[in-house]
């Protein structure tokens, strides 16, 4: 079975890349380098989706996460002019506690799912995954079974628009003239 060997090899490669990129994200001192590792992480994740035959999700992962959301992250890092981690560390002990708590919970969750060894899902994935992963199938589902959630997404996005405008509002009102030198 040459196919299985190939996908296993790719899975190991992409999986390691994802882990390395994740480590890089949390360990690097410069926020920009962190963000770049996260982009790499998303890219590798897209590759893993591809291995699972989820072509559309793979490409959306790259377009939306790597291509759009991370650009926003970079802009925000530049906007706040973060130089290195030192400035952020001091008074975050409570948050750090919560972070460790949630990371621990997530780890337990993952271990639980791995321990389940769900035999019901695995074979189903193998046979029809190729069809499920296409844009055509996703579209069919969106327009029939998931029509309501699909329409509700636009409300969610509308909320995001309003939120962004309200948050940044005072900067393009009349008082903008008094703002300090910004590029």
């Amino acid at each position: 079975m040459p196919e299985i060997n190939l996908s296993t090899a790719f899975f190991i490669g992409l999986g390691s890349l994802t882990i390395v990129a994740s480590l890089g994200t949390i360990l690097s001192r410069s926020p920009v380098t962190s963000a770049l590792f996260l982009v790499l992480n998303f890219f590798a994740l897209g590759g893993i989706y591809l291995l699972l035959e989820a072509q559309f999700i793979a490409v959306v992962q790259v377009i939306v996460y790597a291509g759009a959301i991370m650009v926003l992250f970079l802009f925000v890092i530049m906007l706040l002019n973060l130089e290195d981690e030192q400035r952020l560390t001091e008074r975050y002990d409570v948050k750090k506690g919560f972070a460790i708590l949630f990371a621990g919970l997530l780890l337990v969750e993952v271990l639980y799912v791995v321990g389940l060894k769900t035999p019901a899902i695995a074979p189903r994935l193998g046979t029809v995954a190729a069809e499920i992963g296409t844009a055509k199938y996703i579209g069919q589902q969106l327009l029939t079974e998931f029509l309501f959630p699909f329409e509700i997404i636009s409300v969610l996005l509308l909320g995001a628009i309003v939120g962004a405008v309200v948050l940044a509002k005072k900067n393009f009102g009349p008082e903008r003239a008094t703002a300090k030198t910004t590029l």
Partner: protein
Amino acid sequence: MIEAYLPIFAMIVIAIVLGVLLLTLGRLLGPKRSNSEKMSTYESGIEPVGTAKARISVKYYLVAMFFIIFDIEVIFMYPWAVNLREFGVSGLVSMITFALLLLVGYFYILKKGGLEWN
């Protein structure tokens, strides 16, 4: 299925290798005669003033934010577009409903002046 993507994967590797190779070649062949004048940041001939990492306008952040939102809208249109022929009018109506709400958001942005660049 993964086989169809192998050439793309190879292409990605080749592009990276080619870039690194060219950079290394340039570094090896080029001279290295540095002095502090040469290494200083270009600022039209005068001494650099202040830091280059000035804070940037919130406008860029807003544009990126709106981009994400409308990008997601466009992403949802691809699965819809390949099914439009089968679903006909009902498919068209679903997407118009979806886009109409976002259009409301778009006009809200316009009215609030979120896209003014003066």
